């Protein structure tokens, strides 16, 4: 499996990562290097082996439906570049 330059541009756009045009070629090479490395896993025969969901024998743990969190609006918005009346302020996004 490998990606071409258009795919790299598309992934960057979907992820909202700004990359300069001159970065596309080296990025494509790097990504393909990683993909080739991961591809080696294909050499292992996994016929008839169910997908592994966890390396530990664990079950999904559940919590009761009680309110134990929240009430920290200042902490939540602390890292925001801009806030107003408790809201995050972001560039205008309109449908």
């Amino acid at each position, binding site marked *: 499996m490998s990606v071409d330059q258009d795919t790299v541009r*598309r992934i960057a*756009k*979907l*992820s*909202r990562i700004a990359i300069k045009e001159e970065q596309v070629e080296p990025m494509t090479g790097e990504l393909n290097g990683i993909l080739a490395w991961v591809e080696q896993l294909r050499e292992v025969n996994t016929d008839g082996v169910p997908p592994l*969901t*966890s390396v530990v024998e*664990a*079950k*999904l*743990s*559940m*919590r*009761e*439906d*009680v*309110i*134990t*969190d*929240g*009430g*920290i*609006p200042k*902490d*939540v*918005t602390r890292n925001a570049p*801009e806030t*107003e*009346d*408790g*809201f*995050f*302020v*972001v*560039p*205008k*996004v*309109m*449908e």
Partner: protein
Amino acid sequence: MTTKSPEATTGQKLIQGVTGPWEIVIGLEVHAQVSSNSKLFSGAATEFGAAPNSQVSLVDAAMPGMLPVINKYCVEQAVRTGLGLEAQINNYSVFDRKNYFYPDLPQGYQISQYLQPIVGEGTVLLDMPDGKTVEIGIERLHLEQDAGKSIHDMHPQHSLVDLNRSGVALMEIVSKPDIRSSEEAGLYVTKLRSILRYLGTCDGNMEQGSMRADVNVSVRRPGEELGTRCEIKNMNSIRFIRAAIEYEARRQVDVIEEGGTITQETLLYDTANGVTRSMRSKEEAHDYRYFPDPDLLPLELDQSWVDEIRLSLPELPDQKKKRFIDDLGLSPYDASVLVADRERAAYFETVAEGRDGKLASNWVTSDLFGALKKSNLDVTESPVSAEALGRLIDLISDNTISGKIAKQVFEIMFAEGGEAADIVEARGLRQVTDSGAIEAVVDDIIAANPEKAAEVATKPKALGWFVGQVMKATQGKANPQAVNEILKKKLGG
């Protein structure tokens, strides 16, 4: 029950184009908010209308290193809803990440279920106004997180984001493309809402956004392959869902008949102008790159827990309707009016307890619902309790008052409160059944109107005039049956 020929019924649903008839094909994705105290994967509160960002945990804000822990109650409600929809429950399901970028989605992905949802295929039955039943298939139900809320009209240059809704548990209920008209779509949402409210898994409050629908619409020649669909996003009113479908189906027919083709796209319904508009910005984002969420293990249910939940299900509207028809002798129409709303059904059942079902149904559906509607009240706010209405009906059944007087008593109870028996006593409304007393009145009236009395021999209808006079003289308190008998005896006819 079957009154119309199949042609007449299908004919109703088709839309006529210049080049012939077209069939509308509709599928709905309903997002129903689980009525839980806390969120699907965090302990923050879910209550509507709190101060901005005050019900947000660091999990909901997607701070690095925070991990989701699932809310057991939300899982239970999804199972409950699945059982209520007579759907298959999948004891093994998987949470996936649905990746897209939007300012009110801090994680950059929504935790949802993709290939392995918690609930599989089920059914919803629609009661059509003509008494027929239409079956709509459910494709699946899955659990997912809601996003935050973006507000675009509070600031001239910026959008404001409130994450209170971020992470709230939603059940996405996907129908099969079995719906064939805007009317059926409206009835489907109404019925689904009713089932959810009976189950108590979602409050069904569409104004507050607890229930929202995405509507997929396409058109085709009857019996042919499915056409290309368009998706109208985020509808939260049944009236607008119907109007949007009408508009969109007509638009598609016009495009095709003018030689164009339908492009698959996402639309918004402009409620002010009654038209659908393209949401172009969402198009590119349709590549969600789903993959299993590595933060969450698969959701495995014990069959014994599922069985326990099944045993705790209340009687649902379809079962209740059947019982009202079979055991209480109600008409299918009255039964469906009564069961549509859980509180209304409960009220009726209290009134009908130990009484004549049909009589109780008439009082509840016409007198009570009529009065409530006029005063713009919900059944839970009724000034006349179900018990009190029941005791009023008892007074009719034991001949203490006539049905006509009962309506008068009901109006007093509705307006001023009070107990039926007390009102009857205090105002002297007790029915006169004593034939001697009625006879005396009858004799007086006959004596005062000899010509009219003579008419009865040739015109039996003139008897009715005498009945009216007697009732008037007794302020409606004479037992109408007794009056009729005495008059007939005295005047013939």
